């Protein structure tokens, strides 16, 4: 029997934009714990994702970000805690009943089906009538710009095209939640940037609540409304990209998000004393004593006077230049500056701190 199926997402206008409000669900994780053979992958995680919001889970390998995503999808059961989607605890709901869309890190198109058949699959599972199914699948393929490849098979597509089809396949049912498990990590740099922008555009247009797992901080900062930085199964900090970058609550976040120079300093009365400058400390208070100050490359400048050093290398990065300088005390720092200035290796320079607040690590800490 063929049942009717209402697609809950807004219909995009011809220019690709949508005037409809967000239709995504609220996702809440409360005290979620998951352990694998004695290793705690998720250590009492709390997370709330608002309707239509894109939250990135960012962290190093093994921090639990993929486990968190798989727990939301139901591909991984949890040991304790609650996973609530739109007010309903789904911890015991099987994956195929959760109404989610997911894009995997590995290419996951069904090899025996054409692109169109792949995209139609989710609608078929929902018993959408064949004509409507085809129409909807072609519409979604159009959104990712692959209509003309609809009769091809996965092995006839590039990696980027395969992931765009996977995205269309995940979006075609207008799921309540879209889960992206490092979908760009197998792609080359240029395609990654293109596709992440496409993901963001579609997610915004359709208003689908999205959780995006990545270990690439640039990717997370570029696409997410909020970023949750994870370590050892815990969320260290969650906030907008700007908050995380400007006001990290601890040294791990400061070190993981963006580039930081580690410079030996002294903490006295809650202030960091570094090469004659007194800087405010970001994050939690620390006991006085020797620390490693985490200074952003853009918070150090090449100047006519200040700390003496010798240029090690200088890299052109397009709109800016990054120069590595060995200071006289042996510390190596990266400095971000305008491209017009082109220091040469071996050149004697002086640098100065701009005075921005810094995070700090205990002097003997490794991270």
């Amino acid at each position: 029997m063929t049942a009717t199926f209402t697609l809950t997402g807004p219909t995009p206008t011809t220019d690709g934009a949508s005037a409809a409000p967000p239709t995504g669900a609220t996702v809440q994780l409360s005290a979620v714990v998951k352990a694998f053979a004695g290793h705690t992958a998720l250590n009492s995680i709390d997370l709330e994702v608002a309707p239509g919001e894109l939250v990135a889970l960012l962290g190093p390998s093994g921090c639990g970000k993929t486990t968190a995503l798989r727990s939301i999808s139901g591909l991984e059961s949890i040991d304790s805690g609650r996973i609530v989607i739109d007010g309903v605890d789904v911890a015991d709901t099987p994956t195929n009943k959760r109404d989610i869309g997911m894009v995997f890190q590995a290419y996951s198109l069904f090899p025996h089906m054409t692109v169109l058949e792949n995209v139609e699959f989710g609608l078929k599972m929902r018993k959408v009538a064949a004509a409507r199914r085809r129409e909807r699948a072609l519409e979604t393929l159009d959104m990712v710009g692959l209509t003309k490849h609809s009769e091809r098979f996965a092995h006839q597509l590039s990696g980027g095209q395969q992931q765009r089809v996977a995205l269309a396949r995940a979006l075609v049912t207008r799921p309540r939640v879209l889960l992206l498990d490092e979908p760009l990590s197998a792609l080359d740099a240029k395609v990654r940037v293109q596709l992440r922008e496409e993901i963001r555009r579609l997610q915004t247009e359709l208003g689908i609540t999205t959780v995006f797992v990545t270990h690439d901080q640039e990717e997370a900062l570029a696409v997410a409304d909020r970023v949750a930085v994870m370590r050892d199964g815990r969320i260290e900090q969650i906030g907008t990209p700007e908050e995380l970058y400007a006001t990290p609550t601890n040294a791990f976040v400061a070190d993981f998000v963006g580039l930081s120079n580690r410079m030996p300093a002294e903490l006295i009365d809650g202030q960091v004393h570094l090469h004659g400058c007194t800087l405010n400390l970001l994050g939690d208070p620390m006991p006085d004593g020797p620390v490693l100050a985490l200074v952003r490359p853009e918070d150090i400048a090449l100047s006519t006077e200040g700390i003496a050093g010798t240029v090690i290398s200088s890299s052109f990065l397009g709109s800016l230049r990054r120069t590595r300088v060995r200071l006289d005390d042996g510390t190596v720092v990266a400095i971000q500056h305008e491209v017009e200035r082109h220091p040469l290796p071996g050149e004697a320079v002086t640098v100065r701190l701009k005075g921005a607040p810094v995070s700090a690590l205990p002097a003997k800490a490794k991270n």
Partner: protein
Amino acid sequence: MSANQAVRIGAEPSALARRLILGIIGAIFLIPVIAMIEFTFRNGLAGDYTTSHWTGLFSEDSARTYRGLYQAIENSLVLAAVTVGIVLVLLLPTMVLVHMQFPRLKRTLEFICIIPITVPAIVLVVGLAPVYSVVVQVLGGSTWTLAFAYGITVLPYAYRAIQSNLDAIPVKTLSEAASTLGAGWMTVLWKILLPNLRRGVLAASFISIAVVLGEFTIASLLNRRNLQTALLQVSQSDPWVAVIFALAALALAFVLLLIIGRLGAASPSRRKS
């Protein structure tokens, strides 16, 4: 070891060497077959040739004479079908389940499936005889019950064919992707995994058929009548007909292997077109 030596050891044989190897192996297989064909045209010990052994097969008399042989062929085909059924219904889902949910059991399953190849058929029969005394009481003494034993003897071949296919596709990712799209376990197995395991499943099925059609020892020792036991019996009265049927069985096995190769090599796009 020098780099040159390493290259020499790892180098492919030359085209001539390859042709030579292929020619020798081909001759080893072909000479007996050609001899069998030649034998079927011999006119007794007279030294000349005749087609009467072939044409005689289609006479009314031969239908009566070889009724038992035809019955044995039917038995073997039924046995092949039931054995393939056992492989598809029991072995395939077990292997998929172990591959996806219990990967730690993979080695154990492999070990169990390989065992039959290490046990001589005669030893297997000694073990199976008491089991079959119970089988006869429960299911009767029909020849098809031999398929339970054959289901064991084909395990190593069927296992290897399916496992190599399972290893070649991302089973976990595909089934997880299907689940997130709303597919239940049976749909995943039927619509996603089976089409992608087609090559392995077909290979396992055809190899099972070939093994069953060629099986003699177990059927003979358990007093069942299949193609091979019937051929032995016929050969005692009419060796030409026995050889003709043996050739037919060989041809069938050859065709099956060709089909495996053709289907396995076909890409999705070519199949589609």
